[in-house]
């Protein structure tokens, strides 16, 4: 991939909702504002999502007696964040299907 191709590919995600999985297992969902060669990503209006701990899951299963009991992820608003490239494990693009409009992003 040459530079201009790369630039136009990455540029189409600006302002689009991304979900970024970090090395410690958290997921950050927000609008992409900025990125660079080091894959450092700045997200705006971000929410942090954290998987429930094993302890909580164990309790939920015990209490309901159902081995597939639903346990919610914890989420909170964290606003504007920068995720260092070294900690980015997975990047997901969240394409909205609202009113049948396509986002026009080529994935």
């Amino acid at each position, binding site marked *: 991939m040459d530079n201009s191709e790369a630039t136009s*590919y990455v540029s189409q995600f600006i302002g689009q909702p991304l979900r970024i999985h970090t090395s410690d297992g958290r997921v950050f969902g927000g609008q992409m504002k900025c990125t660079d060669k080091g894959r450092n990503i*700045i997200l705006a209006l971000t929410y942090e999502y954290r998987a429930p701990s094993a302890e909580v899951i164990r309790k939920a299963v015990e209490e309901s007696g159902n081995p597939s009991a639903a346990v919610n992820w914890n989420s909170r608003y964290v606003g504007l964040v920068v995720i260092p490239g070294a900690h980015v494990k997975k990047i997901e693009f969240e394409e909205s*299907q609202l009113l049948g409009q396509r986002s026009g992003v080529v994935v």
Partner: protein
Amino acid sequence: MADPSLLHHDAAARDTDAPIASNGTGPAFASAESSSFAQTSLPLRQAPRRGAPPQIHDVTEKFTRACQALDVGQLIKDEYFTLFESIGAIEIMDAKMDSGFLQPGETLEDDFDLLAPLLPEELIGIMDQLLSYEMAWHTGYPLSQTLFTSVYIDRLLYPEPKTIPQAQFYRGDIPDDKRPGTLLDVLRAYCLALIKGCDYVIAKIMARDYFEEEDFATHTYNRVLFVQVPIDVFLRELDASVEMIEDSDLKIDDELRSAIIARLHFRKSFLCALDPECPLELLSNFWPPVLPHVDKVNDTQHLGRTVPGSFSTKIQRRLASTVPPRPIVEVEFKDALQTLKQLCADCEEATRFKDLPTDPLEYQSFLWTFASRQPAPLTYSRSYLSNILFDPYILNAPVSLPLEDVKSFVFHESPILDPANWALSPPRNPLMPKPPRLQFALLIDEFVERVGQPYLDLWVALGQNRCRLRRMLTHVIIAWDMLQQDAVFVDADLVVHALQLNIAEEVMDSPLLTWVYIKKLWMIEKVIILGFEQDIYLPDEHAGMYYFLSLTAGKRKDALQRCAEHLSERCIQFVQKSRYQDTNDTDKKLAFIDSELQQATGISAFAKALHGFYVIANYLHLLPCPGRPFSTEELRYELRMKPFLTLQPPEVPPFEEFQTALQPYGAYSDPKPSINDDLKQEHSLPWTNIDASLKAAKDAFADVKKRGAKGAKAKGVEQAWNKETQGMLASCVALGVAVAGLKSAVKNTELGRGPQLKVELPTVDKRYVGGWVVPKIVKE
């Protein structure tokens, strides 16, 4: 989401309505509105259409490859996203910034068992620690670093309970054997009342002007502090807790028992006092009962025992938080109680406001004195006072407050304010001129309305803390300056109509202009005095600033003099017309003007004396003077005078004039030789000027003192007023001593070698009056 075409249609329909609506009165407007709806298709809101769930694409691999192909330093970014904004971003996985980052082995939450039974000592410990944090919050720390670090409070508020019975240290059903015991129930009641108290505090502070995070942090991190629940629910919980503790079946030590009860009583009385719904006339009943409980809490504080783990920074992770994690604030219980006592005392003092006579000048004295209280009142106390001041009962008094203020200075028993003027009707033919008396009424009404905003601005400024008061006043002065320009026109119109009625001699020359000018000059004086109080000016600038103060107060004195002269004339007119009652009333008003006049005379003369003293001290190099290689005196002068440079008429003297006043013998570093002889002679001009000013100041302040607080319209704050007036007299005496000391020291030494003495400037707490820096001469 509404269909865009429908939205547009609706907007267009409203547009065509607009002309009809603006012509019609109320009912016509309503009918126009309804008929337009009948004509057009109904703009119903559409239920939001649910789209398909978003589709997730994993772009990791391609994204990474694309990033690698970017150049070093190349940023792919939103056009409007700036470097400045990016600085505010929180760095994920950085322990110092990211509150969600876990150290290896660290768990997200502490495993603190909220239902574990408490000892009575531990209950007391937790209650006292909560009180400490509450006070830390009052002094400006956010809730996230104080009360919200309590695991008990956190559990009561989150997950958000729908009802108060749901607000427990657990959620849902639990087996009976795990239900919280009596002491935990008591803690719950205490916490609930505490949380409601915070809600009340926030409500009161947000109702008035305050500065978020500078004064106070109202942020509740999306936790709802039982906003909708009325106070009696909390009082009931507290009462029930008192009963539970008093129950003789509960086996606890009597000392501990009474300590817990004292805390519950305190919480109850405090919550009642914080209640914002409390009617104005009952306010003063609620603060006095709080203090005895505080003392009891203080006496039994040693009984408490802290519970490790009952407060935790980890809770910050769950607060919707966009700031890095911060440590819990450490507060000494002793300091917290001091803050609490101060809060109670200030609020109690504030409740006295409602008993003041309905006179804006009394209000102004009260606001000024309240802001001068030491230690400075907390944000809550200041909002508390502002809320009383801006209560409709006070603000919508039957008389117009600004007009009352005007009346105190000009317009005594004036035909311009004759109530009959307001009873006249305009002529039926609009082309006929309105009768002059009606014109008076209209002009005054117009002016009063124009005054409204600048007048309120002044009061809002007086409700701030001292530092901000000084800065805000400089802005308020600008608004009053514009008001002054407008007053000129109203005055001109008043004269025209007074001439028509042939009563020109009964109307003062430019009455409204004079009033606005007096108020404006008063504010300028306060700005300078506050500058001294807050040590804004360096010692070598004292001479210049006191010079400016003396000039300003002198102008106010002249304006007041004109008011006094007019009043005396009116008195004579009344006597001639045998209106003895009016003569008496005018005499009373004259008493206030005279008091103000003496006050302004005193300030002007004393500032002049200080100016003279500091000039000599500058020549003798007795004051520290920092090197300033990058500025000139002229630029520094401009900077100091900046807030006042635009005022009309010009208040700031030209630099040359200022320079002549400050350096009568030429530059400090190279004075004219004649200074030597002048300073050595006791009866030379520099010394006699100081002595004369000092004497004039002393006489004026003595006169003000004799007239008393009532004469100065400061009856409501008589004690503080007396103290300040006494302080001014004492300052005069102290300056006299300093002048004598300097005089004798200079006499015995050669100027070039410098006299063996030192000038000491007292710090603000050691001065008789904060804004008056009277130096002390110390021989070495």
